[in-house]
């Protein structure tokens, strides 16, 4: 047997162990890997940076525990950016789990920026019917959501919910960002994007991201974060402009992502090299 034969049949458990080790080390030890900020993430960042401060931003989340690895960091950088710029925002969701996960994230970040629920941010809650809801908010947000989801206060009660001051429909929004593993963006583009001056940005999982270039190219979407990589690029921009003092989880996470992809390259290379070498060896044996 050829001495390179092992490269073709490495026990899977060894592969798993190496991957796990790379992830743990990558998270613990800051590895300075180059990170190119792509045009899509930059465009989204610029849109949030230039969003009018006197209007309400809308962050729609549709992710659940299963895709939080990518979608949670994306939500976090967007919320941090909005809070740093003191833009009030609203949360909404088309996924029941997501409305809780995003609310918890917002509750975690709010104290750091002095955000108060009802004054600086609000949770509209969850709706199952995508098309109906989106068609509804184009006409009237208070009629569509009726109350906030935390305390069931009518959205028109401005004394208790000053955050809703001057917000009637999508025309009164400053920017819309959806963070989602599913294809809801089509409904946004069909029903909402044309109705409002607010720009529309996206945080898709990296599986879904390639679908979106088309829409960015067509100007229907201002920009996006390509999965976890996009979130890290966005975080890089936030560090550069001083919004963030130190890198967070996202920047840490990008090193193990890159390392694991490199591992995959190495493994595929090894497997093929071994196969090639063994095959050649066999040919020579025959010849001799």
């Amino acid at each position: 047997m050829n001495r390179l034969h092992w490269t073709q049949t490495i026990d899977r458990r060894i592969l798993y162990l190496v991957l796990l080790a790379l992830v743990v080390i990558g998270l613990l030890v800051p590895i300075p890997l180059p990170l190119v900020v792509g045009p899509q993430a930059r465009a989204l960042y610029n849109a949030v940076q230039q969003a009018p401060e006197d209007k309400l931003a809308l962050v729609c989340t549709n992710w659940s525990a299963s895709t939080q690895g990518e979608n949670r960091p994306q939500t976090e950088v967007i919320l941090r950016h909005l809070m740093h710029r003191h833009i009030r925002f609203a949360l909404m969701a088309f996924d029941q789990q997501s409305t809780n996960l995003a609310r918890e994230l917002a509750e975690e970040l709010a104290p750091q920026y002095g955000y108060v629920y009802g004054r600086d941010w609000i949770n509209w809650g969850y709706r199952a019917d995508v098309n109906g809801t989106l068609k509804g908010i184009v006409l009237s947000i208070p009629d569509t959501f009726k109350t906030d989801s935390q305390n069931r206060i009518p959205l028109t009660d401005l004394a208790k919910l000053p955050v809703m001051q001057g917000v009637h429909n999508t025309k009164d929004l400053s920017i819309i960002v959806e963070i989602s593993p599913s294809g809801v963006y089509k409904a946004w583009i069909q029903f909402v994007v044309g109705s409002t001056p607010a720009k529309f940005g996206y945080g898709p999982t990296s599986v879904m991201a390639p679908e979106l270039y088309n829409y960015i190219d067509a100007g229907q979407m201002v920009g996006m974060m390509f999965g976890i990589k996009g979130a890290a690029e966005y975080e890089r921009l936030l560090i550069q402009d001083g919004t963030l003092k130190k890198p967070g989880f996202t920047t840490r996470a990008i090193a193990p992502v890159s390392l694991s992809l490199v591992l995959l390259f190495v493994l595929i290379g090894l497997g093929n090299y071994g196969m090639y070498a063994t095959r050649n060896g066999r040919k020579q044996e025959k010849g001799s």
Partner: protein
Amino acid sequence: MKLSTLLSKLFPPLHGWPLIGALVGVLVLCVFLFFALHALPPRARKMVIAGATFLAGLFFALEWFWPAGADGTNPLTFAVPTVGNVANVLTAFTLGLGVMSLIRIHGNNVARQKAGWENSVVLLAGMVVMAVSGLFFEKTIFFRSLFRDVLNSFDAAMFATLAFYIISAAYRAFRIKSVEATLMMIAALVVMLGMIPIGQALTSFIPERGSFLSLLRVDNISNWMLTILNAAAQRAINFGLGVGALAIALRVWLSLERGAYFESSAE
């Protein structure tokens, strides 16, 4: 008269004793229908099944084909949410079958002390604790933590094992064994290269835009592959799937289907 008003006249909402009377009446009627149905000869039974399937489908088909007015609705549109609810409710009633399947298999394990019966105890206990705390103590920290910290963690953990599996699958499958395997490998490598800084750095000397060469940047090649080749291939595959689904749906709806479940006559 509108169909919706006709219906509300035929089935007026009731309250108090009349309501209870109506509910009991419906139940008795159901029991009667049950035995009446069972008295049918096999041929008629087949027709009942075929008829029920056809009628259930007919509603959605008619609603769609019936021209809509200026307001985007037709006389059947008002019933779409209700019929959707009926489908949801009927599906929900099957829940008991699933729970009974679990209880039967795991209850048996416990009763006969089969190997691993302790696990079956854990399964049944978990089910009871979760159901009871969810139904009656929904607002407690206990239930919220059980759902979020335990159940969601398990979901995410199982999902995360995919990271390992994808590595071993790629390592094993991406070998230059055949034209097909090689093509798959090349495409995967290019797309992955486009995602990592090292890959992007390979062609970063090419200007991002404005030059013919910029098309050769790894990220651009990768995007092109995903948005042109991949999108076109997926689209063609999906055309076939769409037509296939249409065909089997028509066969099921019109009771033309043959094969498992359908060929046998109702005894």
